[in-house]
């Protein structure tokens, strides 16, 4: 008896009033033949994101779009854990709400997993077929420099460490998340590195990453220090 796969797509949001509607539309457009649910974990956005999600529920159904909000910004890691608790699928996709992760790649994640039986499929911006847009030279330089440093120190086995567009087998995500303690994008790195250390089968698919078109990016200047601290932490503890 073949098991049917259901995909729970967890999207953490904060002030993504417009983007979340666009993302939901695109997910439904590209996964029309797949059994899935979208779990929006909103951290008390003041811009009315949750109202828009409720409108979307009227259009697509409350069984397809789950709003599992939290009272305030409580961090990315806990957002995933929170979403996981409500996930009824056997696979979990995590992605950003700001359209930098385009739902058109979701079928390729699913296909790769079915082909290889992988536990994790991670999107990479750094291989042929993938790519970025809207990055100036400085950003590309820091990204590439950060990547080379991380590859040299950690030998992670994946080409894109900080990416957060991933498909996980639900049991695997539960296992890894319980052992990760970092915050922000270092958390993403920690997850994939720990998964690699634990011997989980990880595959990659190329994805494109178009810099956010609506809203303000949450990338700041002290990120470099945080990154180096994160690398050092991962070097020693994984």
């Amino acid at each position, binding site marked *: *008896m*073949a*098991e*049917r*796969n259901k995909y729970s797509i967890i999207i953490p949001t904060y002030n993504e*009033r*417009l983007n979340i*509607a*666009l993302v939901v*539309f*695109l997910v439904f457009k590209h996964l029309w033949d797949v059994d899935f649910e979208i779990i929006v974990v909103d951290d008390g956005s003041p811009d*009315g994101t949750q109202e*828009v999600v409720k*409108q*979307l529920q*009227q*259009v697509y159904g409350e069984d397809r779009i789950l709003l599992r909000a939290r009272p305030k910004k409580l961090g990315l890691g806990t957002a995933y854990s929170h979403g996981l608790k409500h996930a009824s699928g056997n696979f979990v996709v995590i992605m950003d709400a700001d*359209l930098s992760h*385009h739902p058109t790649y979701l079928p390729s994640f699913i296909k790769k*997993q*079915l082909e290889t*039986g*992988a*536990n994790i499929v991670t999107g990479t*911006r*750094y*291989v*042929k*077929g*993938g*790519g*970025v*847009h809207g*990055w100036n030279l400085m950003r*590309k*330089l820091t990204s*590439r*420099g950060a*990547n*080379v*440093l991380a590859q*040299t*120190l950690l030998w992670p086995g994946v080409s894109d460490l900080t990416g957060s567009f991933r498909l996980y*087998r639900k*049991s695997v995500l539960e296992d890894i998340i319980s052992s990760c303690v970092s915050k922000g994008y270092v958390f993403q790195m920690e997850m994939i590195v720990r998964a690699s*250390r*634990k*011997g*989980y089968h990880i595959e990659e698919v*190329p994805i*494109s*990453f*178009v810099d956010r*078109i*609506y*809203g303000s990016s949450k990338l700041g200047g002290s990120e470099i220090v945080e990154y180096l601290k994160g690398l050092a932490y991962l*070097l*020693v*503890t*994984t």
Partner: protein
Amino acid sequence: MTRTSSSISGSFRPQLYHRSMKHIVKIMTLLVGISALWFGLLKTSMVPSSHTLLLPIYFIMCLGCYGLLMVGVGLMRFPTCPQEALLLQQDVIEAKGYLKQRGVDVGSE
């Protein structure tokens, strides 16, 4: 079509190395090995010690150059996708049109 082998136990690969050996231990072992080699060279004086003493500096310089090379090459070959930005613009227009008709507020922020 789904595969029954996508069950949990079917896809878990066994540990490729002893679970409790952390990555840092592997790195340290490597460094210790290289250091031992270096001390050995110093002691046996097969190579003039003036050269041997400088080896660590050469090593670090090579590592640095390699790193810079990798950064440079990666930067040159950094894949970009301007066409994706255009497609995204089209997607946004399509999405807004569809959702607006169905009562979802897609006005600009």
